[in-house]
């Protein structure tokens, strides 16, 4: 289900080339929406003084996460190997329930649709959805 075809990878790379300039905005907005729309995700950030979706910790973290996504685009030919360190981090230190990767991915797609309504065609939508699903699988690799 998450084998990325050459066509998928081309679509992801092409779309990312168009939107990467706004990567920080996408990251901040995706995380804000995840926290606002799926409040159960806030349980992972109880160590933040300010847990509000548009607070400074959330904005900073959105950028961090999106930098990870940008890195994954460059490693799209072997996500499992490329994301090994991040997988260990999420598995042993952060211990995020992998179901939440789907939630964050959905919010990234919503933000992309809002910011790039013309470019975010159904074909780009499916390629990005598959890519984020593959990314999530690679992140969950070391869990068990």
């Amino acid at each position, binding site marked *: 289900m998450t084998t990325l075809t050459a066509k998928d990878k081309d679509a992801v790379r092409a779309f990312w080339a168009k939107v990467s300039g706004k990567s920080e905005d996408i990251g901040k907005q995706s995380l*804000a*929406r995840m*926290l606002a729309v799926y409040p159960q995700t806030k349980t992972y950030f109880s160590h933040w003084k300010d847990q509000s979706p548009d607070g400074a910790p959330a904005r900073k973290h959105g950028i961090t996460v999106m930098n990870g996504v940008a890195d994954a685009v460059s490693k799209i030919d072997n996500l499992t190997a490329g994301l090994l360190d991040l997988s260990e981090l999420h598995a042993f230190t952060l211990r995020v329930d992998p179901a939440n990767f789907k939630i964050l991915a959905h919010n990234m797609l919503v933000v992309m649709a*809002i910011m790039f*309504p013309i470019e975010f065609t*159904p074909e780009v939508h*499916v390629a990005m959805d598959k890519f984020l699903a593959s990314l999530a699988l690679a992140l969950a690799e070391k869990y068990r």
Partner: protein
Amino acid sequence: MVKFTEKERSTIRAIWEKVNIDEVGPDALARVLIVYPWTERYFGTFGDIFTASAVLNNAKVVAHGKVVLKALDEAVKNMDNIKKTYAYLSRLHYEVFHVDPDNFRLLADCITIAIACKVKSALDPQVQATWKKFLSAVVDAMNSQYY
């Protein structure tokens, strides 16, 4: 039973007012078929829906997209009683169409994305949260007669 505050009701109606059913309906359904191709199994009479371009040029997809969004209008008009309003539709999708109810969740996500393309920043995080609460109630109602 899901309860909506006055603020939530007006938020949902405000977004719904911006939605052109004839545009968003077909877009949402096309995305479901393209992004989640296993849903093709439910549309055997639609002809060619096996590639993205076939889906996007299929008149039956357009027509049915409108039907689906028109049904959502009923939920907007009956926010206090979505379960009862949708009981018939739920039974129909179970007994006649044999639709796996997980697909209702997928459709809801695609409706949100199709609306996001149209209304853009009007769908801010708070509005998205309220809209999701509404769609979750709709998805619940669609699941309610599966037993």
